[in-house]
C-alpha cells in the first residue's frame, strides 16, 4: 500500500473545508460541526499513522514529488523530518480539540468551521512543503482564514487586530519572497526545490547570505514573534475568539521557529553564526520583556499572550545557540508551548464563555467555585512554568543546557525568565483562584463533560511528555543534530557534541 500520506494529511482538512463551504446548508449547525470534527479527527488518525511510520533517522522521509509549474521550476514536493513531524502532529491534535471547544459556536457557524479547516490544511502544508513556492503559498494562504477568524468572530477591537496581524505577517512574507526569487536566479538555481536552493544559498558570499538571511528572518521573526516584532501578537490574541487564539499560539507561531531550523540555519550558516549574537540578544530580551510585561497585565488572556512572547524567546535562544541539545530542546519546547499555552487559552476561553470577562481582578476563589477547572488550570500553569515532571521542563531545560555550552550569558539571563514565568503565572493563579469566592466567581458552573474531554488529552500529554520525553527526542534528535552540525561546519565553528536530552 503506497498511500501518499503527506498529501492525504493536507487533503483531508482541505476537502472537509470545501465540503462545509459548498454542500452543507448554513443553518444546519449539527451537520457543520460534526463534519468539522470528523475531518479533523480523521486527520489526527492519519497523523498517528504518520508518527508510527516515521523512522528515527536524519533527513526527509515519505517524500512526494510531482511537477506543478515546470516552466518556473516549481514542483509539488513534500517530506517530513524530525523537525516537522511533531509540529504536524501538534496541529492535527489541536484542531479537533479546538472544534470541540467551539461546539457551541452560534454566529456564522459555517464560515467559522470552514476557516478552521482551511487553516489546518495550510498549516500542515507549511510544515511539509519542500518547495519554496509551495511553502510560500501555504504561508500566505493561511492568513486569509486566520484573518477571518479574528476579524469576524473576534472581540470589540477585532478589525484593528486582524489587520495588524495580516499586514505584519505579509511584510515578512514579501521580504521572504524576494529572497526566494533572488536565490532562484543564482547560478545553480532555476528550481524552487528546497535542497537545491539550500546548496545554492550555501555557496553565496557572506554579504549575499546576510541580506537573504535577513529576508527570511523577517518572515520568521514576525511569526515567532521575536522582540521587537511582537506587537501584533497581544492584539491578535486578545481579540481573537478562543479557537483563533489557540491555533495561533499553539501552531501558527511555531512556523517561526520551524522556519529558523528549516531555512535559516541550513541555507545561511555563515550569516546565522555572524548574526546569532544579535538574535540571541533579541531572544533574551523577548524572554525577560515578555515576562515583565505579562506580570503587569490585568487581562488574563493578554497575560497568556505575553507569556507566549517569553516562551518563544526560549525557542529562539535554543535554535541560535547552535548547539544540538539546545536546538532539540527548541523543537520540543515548540510542541510543549503548543500544548500548554493552547490549554491555557482554552481554559481562559471556558471562563470567558461563562462570564464574558477576562479581568483578573474580577475573579476570586475560583478554585472553590469550579474545582475541576481550578485543578486543570493549576496543572497547565505548572506545565507552562516548566515544573520538572511536566512537559515544559523537558523543553526548557535542554535549551538552557545547550545554550550554556555555547553562549553562557544568554543561558544565564534566560534562566531568569523561568523564574519570572513562575512568578507571573502563579501570582495570577493566586489572585484568581484562591481566597473567598467573590466577584464574578460566584455561582459559576464547573466545566461540563465536553470541556473536560477537550482538556484530558492535553493534560495527559503534559504528564506523558514530562515523564517520558524519550520517544520524541529519539525522533527529533538525528535531524536536528545534522542541521546544527552542518550549520556549524558551514560557519567554520568547531563541532560540539550532543549532551543531555538523550
Amino acid at each position: 500500500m503506497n498511500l501518499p500520506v503527506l498529501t492525504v494529511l493536507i487533503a483531508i482538512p482541505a476537502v472537509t473545508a470545501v465540503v462545509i463551504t459548498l454542500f452543507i446548508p448554513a443553518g444546519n449547525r449539527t451537520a457543520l460541526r460534526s463534519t468539522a470534527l470528523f475531518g479533523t479527527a480523521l486527520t489526527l488518525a492519519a497523523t498517528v499513522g504518520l508518527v508510527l511510520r516515521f523512522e528515527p533517522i536524519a533527513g526527509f522521509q515519505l517524500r512526494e514529488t510531482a511537477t506543478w509549474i515546470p516552466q518556473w521550476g516549481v514542483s509539488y514536493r513534500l517530506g517530513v523530518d524530525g523537525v516537522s513531524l511533531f509540529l504536524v502532529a501538534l496541529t492535527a491534535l489541536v484542531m479537533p480539540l479546538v472544534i470541540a471547544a467551539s461546539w457551541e459556536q452560534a454566529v456564522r457557524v459555517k464560515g467559522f468551521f470552514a476557516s478552521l479547516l482551511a487553516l489546518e490544511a495550510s498549516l500542515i502544508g507549511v510544515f511539509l512543503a519542500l518547495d519554496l513556492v509551495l511553502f510560500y503559498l501555504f504561508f500566505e494562504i493561511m492568513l486569509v482564514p486566520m484573518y477571518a477568524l479574528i476579524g469576524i468572530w473576534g472581540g470589540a477591537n477585532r478589525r484593528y487586530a486582524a489587520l495588524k496581524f495580516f499586514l505584519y505577517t505579509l511584510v515578512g512574507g514579501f521580504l521572504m519572497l524576494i529572497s526566494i526569487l533572488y536565490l532562484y536566479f543564482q547560478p545553480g538555481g532555476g528550481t524552487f526545490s528546497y535542497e537545491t536552493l539550500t546548496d545554492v544559498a550555501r555557496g553565496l558570499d557572506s554579504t549575499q547570505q546576510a541580506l537573504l538571511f535577513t529576508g527570511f528572518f523577517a518572515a520568521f521573526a514576525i511569526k515567532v514573534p521575536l522582540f521587537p516584532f511582537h506587537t501584533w501578537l497581544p492584539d491578535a490574541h486578545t481579540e481573537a475568539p478562543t479557537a483563533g487564539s489557540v491555533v495561533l499560539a499553539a501552531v501558527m507561531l511555531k512556523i517561526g521557529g520551524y522556519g529558523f531550523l528549516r531555512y535559516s540555519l541550513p541555507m545561511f550558516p555563515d550569516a546565522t553564526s555572524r548574526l546569532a549574537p544579535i538574535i540571541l540578544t533579541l531572544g533574551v530580551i523577548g524572554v525577560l520583556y515578555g515576562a515583565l510585561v505579562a506580570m503587569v497585565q490585568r487581562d488574563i488572556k493578554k497575560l497568556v499572550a505575553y507569556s507566549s512572547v517569553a516562551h518563544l524567546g526560549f525557542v529562539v535562544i535554543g535554535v541560535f545557540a547552535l548547539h544540538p541539545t539546545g536546538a532539540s530542546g527548541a523543537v520540543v519546547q515548540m510542541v510543549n508551548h503548543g500544548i500548554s499555552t493552547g490549554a491555557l487559552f482554552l481554559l481562559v476561553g471556558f471562563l470567558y464563555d461563562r462570564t464574558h470577562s477576562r479581568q483578573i481582578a474580577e475573579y476570586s476563589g475560583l478554585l472553590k467555585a469550579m474545582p475541576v477547572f481550578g485543578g486543570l488550570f493549576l496543572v497547565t500553569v505548572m506545565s507552562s512554568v516548566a515544573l520538572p515532571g511536566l512537559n515544559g521542563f523537558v523543553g526548557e531545560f535542554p535549551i538552557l543546557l545547550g545554550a550554556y555550552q555555547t553562549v553562557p550569558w544568554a543561558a544565564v539571563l534566560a534562566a531568569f525568565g523561568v523564574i519570572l514565568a513562575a512568578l507571573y503565572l502563579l501570582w495570577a493563579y493566586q489572585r484568581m483562584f484562591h481566597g473567598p469566592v467573590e466577584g464574578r466567581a460566584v455561582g459559576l458552573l464547573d466545566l461540563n463533560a465536553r470541556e473536560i474531554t477537550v482538556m484530558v488529552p492535553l493534560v495527559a500529554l503534559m504528564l506523558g511528555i514530562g515523564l517520558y520525553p524519550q520517544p520524541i527526542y529519539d525522533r527529533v534528535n538525528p535531524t536536528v543534530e545534522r542541521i546544527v552540525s552542518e550549520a556549524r561546519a558551514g560557519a567554520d565553528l568547531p563541532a560540539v557534541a550532543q549532551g543531555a536530552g538523550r
Partner: protein
Amino acid sequence: MTILAQAVQQIDVPQIAWGAISPELVLFGFGIVVLLLETAGRSRVGVSAFLTVVVLAAAALLGWRTGETLTALMVALAALATMALTLIWRDRPRMLSAILTALGFVGALAATGWQWAEYAGAATATVGSESFPIVGTATAIGDMVAVDGVALFTRFTVCIAGLLTIPLGYAYAESRRIHRGEYYPLLLFSATGMTLLASSADLIMVFISIEILSLSLYILTAFARRDLNSQEAAFKYFLLGAFSSALLLYGIAVTYGIAGTTNIAAAGAAFATLDAPQAMTLTAMGLLVVGFGFKTAIVPFHMWTPDVYQGAPTPVTGFMAAATKAAAFAAFARLFVGSFANLQWTWVPAIWVLAVATMLLGAILAVVQQDVKRMLGYSAVAHAGYVLLGLTAVTRDGVSSLLLYLLIYAVTSLGAFGVLSLLERRTRKAMALDDLRGVGRRYPVPAGMFALFLLSLAGIPGTAGFIAKFAVFRSAVEAGQILLVAAAVLSSLIAFFFYIRVIVVMFMDEEPAEAEFAAPLISTTGMSAGLAVAAAVVVVVGLVPGLLLDLARQAASFAG
C-alpha cells in the same frame, strides 16, 4: 506615357493578406451588422434577410474567385446564423444584439485561434540554455500589421474581456435604462481598435487604432447620459485623450523626421544606428511614452483614470480597464522592447521612475478613496505599474509575464466590476465603501466572489493574481531590477490594505439599518454565468497555471 507607366509601377501596391487581420474583420463585420440591425428597428428581419443575401453572394464570389472555400463557408454560416438569430429574437432587439456581439467575439477568438495554430512553433526562442518553440512572426499588408505572439495573445485577452462584458453588463444596462442600440456596436468597434493596436507594426497604424478604440470608448463612457458623473467622465476622457493623441502623433512625426519611416521595426533600427541629434531621439521617445502612458494610465498621465472609472457605466469601466490596458501595453512593448531595445539605456531608467511612481502613488491614493469604483480605478493605476515591471525587464520572459499579467488582470478586474455592477443594481447609485456594509452576510455568494477577485488583485497565493504577480516579479528579479521589485512589494503591501478593507466592510461590519429597505438583489443567469466563469478562471489559473504559462511563453515575440 512611359513616365506615367513608371510612376504607376513605383507605387508598390501592397499584397493585402486579409487573413492577417481576420479577427479584426470579424469584429468589425459583426459591429456593422449589429449596428444595421439596431438602426433597422422594426424592419430588422427584412434588413437581416437582405444582409444575408448580400453576404452569401459575397461568400460565394470569394469561394469561387480565390478558392478559399473554408473561409467562404464560415462567412456564409455566420450570415445564416445571424438570419436565424434575428428570426428567433425578433422581438427582443437588445438580446439579439448581445448574442450577435458575443458571436462576434467568439468568431474573433476562433480566427485568432486559427492564426495561432498556423503560426505556433514556427520560430524558436532561447532563454539561457533552454530553447523552446514560439509563435512565428510575420508582417502583412505592407508591413502595417504584425502577426506574432504578442498580437495574438492580446487578441485573446481583448476578446475574452469583451465576451465577459456582455453578460455582466446586460442586466445593469437594462436596469439603468441605458441599454441603447449603439452599445454593442461600439463595444465591437472599440475591440476592433484594441486588437488592431496590439498588432500594429507601423506607428500610423498605432495612431489609427488608438483613435478607433478611443472614440468608441468616449461614447461608451458617456453612455449613462442622464448621469452627470458619466458626462463629466466622458468629457474629461475626451479632452485628455485628444491631448495625448496629439502628443503621440507629434512623437510619431518626430520619429518620422529622424528615421524617415513610421515602420516600428525600421524606426528602431534607424534610431540605433543613427548619429542624429540625441535630443531629437529622446524627444520622440518621450512623446511616445507620454502617448502610451496616457492609454495605460501610468503616473503622471493617470489623472483621468479615477474620474473615468468612477463615472463610466460599471461594465464599460470593467471592459476599459481590462482590454484597453492589454492592447496599449502590447503596442507599448512592441515599440519599446521590440524595437527600441538597443536604446534601453535611455528609456529604461525613465520607465523605471514612472513604474515606481505609478505603483506607489496608485496604491497610496487608492487607500483614501471612499468610492469603490474610484478605488478600483487607482488600483488599476497600481497594476499598470506592476505591468511596467515586465516591460523594464526588456527580456523575453518580461514580455511573456506582461502578457500573462494583462490577461489575468483582465479576467479578475472584469469579475470585480461585474460584482459591483450587480450590487449597484441594488442601491441604484454610486457604490461607496459604506454601502457594502454587511453585504457579505446578506448575499454571501456575490460577496464571496468579490472577495475572491479582490484577493486575486491583491495577489494572494492560490489565486491567478499571485501567478501574474509572481511572473512579473520573477522577470524583474531576473533582469536585476531588485529595487524595482522592492518598490512593487511595498506597493502590494499598501494595496493589500485597501483590498482587505473592502472585504472587512463586507463581512465584518453590521448592515446599516436602511439596508432593509433597499431593493433586493436580482441576479440574471447571464450575470451568474459570467461571474462563475471569471471566478473559475481565477481559481484554476491560480492553482494550475501551467497551460497558460506555456501559451504566454510561446507568445513572447520580442527578446529585447
